């Protein structure tokens, strides 16, 4: 039973345009969500997080939106750059920001075309 789903295995976007990566979850007890970016042969690196008390969080070109009623979050990257080409994972947890057990999605491979 996959509690965190990223239904699009891959996405291609032109440089300068918006990239939208989606993530759905099934467990209504999840209250903290993170996005990670992973390049080949490297470990994931943290991008941005959001708590369930918010519906939006921004950090530079990256914005995460949370729709609790739909159990859906999305990561927007504007404008997209070739260096953003990577695999993006969403992760969810219960217990707020102080928890330590995350459920990861299967990832979406983003390719930004120059």
């Amino acid at each position, binding site marked *: 039973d996959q509690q*965190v789903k*990223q239904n699009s*295995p891959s996405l291609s976007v032109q440089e300068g345009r918006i990239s939208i990566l989606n993530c759905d979850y099934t467990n209504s007890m999840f209250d*903290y969500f*993170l996005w*990670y970016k992973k390049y080949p*042969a*490297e*470990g*994931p*690196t*943290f991008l941005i*997080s959001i708590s369930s008390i918010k519906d939006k969080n921004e950090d530079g070109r990256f914005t995460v939106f949370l729709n609790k009623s739909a159990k859906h979050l999305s990561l927007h990257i504007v404008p997209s750059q070739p260096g953003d080409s990577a695999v993006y*994972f969403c*992760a969810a*947890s219960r217990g707020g*920001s*102080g*928890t*330590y*057990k*995350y*459920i*990861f*999605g*299967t*990832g979406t491979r983003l390719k930004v075309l120059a």
Partner: protein
Amino acid sequence: NAGVTQTPKFRILKIGQSMTLQCTQDMNHNYMYWYRQDPGMGLKLIYYSVGAGITDKGEVPNGYNVSRSTTEDFPLRLELAAPSQTSVYFCASSYLAEQFFGPGTRLTVL
């Protein structure tokens, strides 16, 4: 500041062999984790630790053991390697929510 370091980077094991994957962090984080990532899949939590001397099972602990004798080190032990343990293994550490990952160990069991 090296962050999280993992050794070795690659390893090939024969069925039934044992090995220890090493993980060290220099950020004085209390929380440490071991994940495995199979092709096309997300990361699955194997074991985690909330501090020296305290460890607990994650989603997929069977076939693995861990210990946490110091804050810095969190080794993962495979006692009887099986082909199903072929994967990329990531160690991570955290103070709170943001986990810092090592570069991974690619393990093949033949």
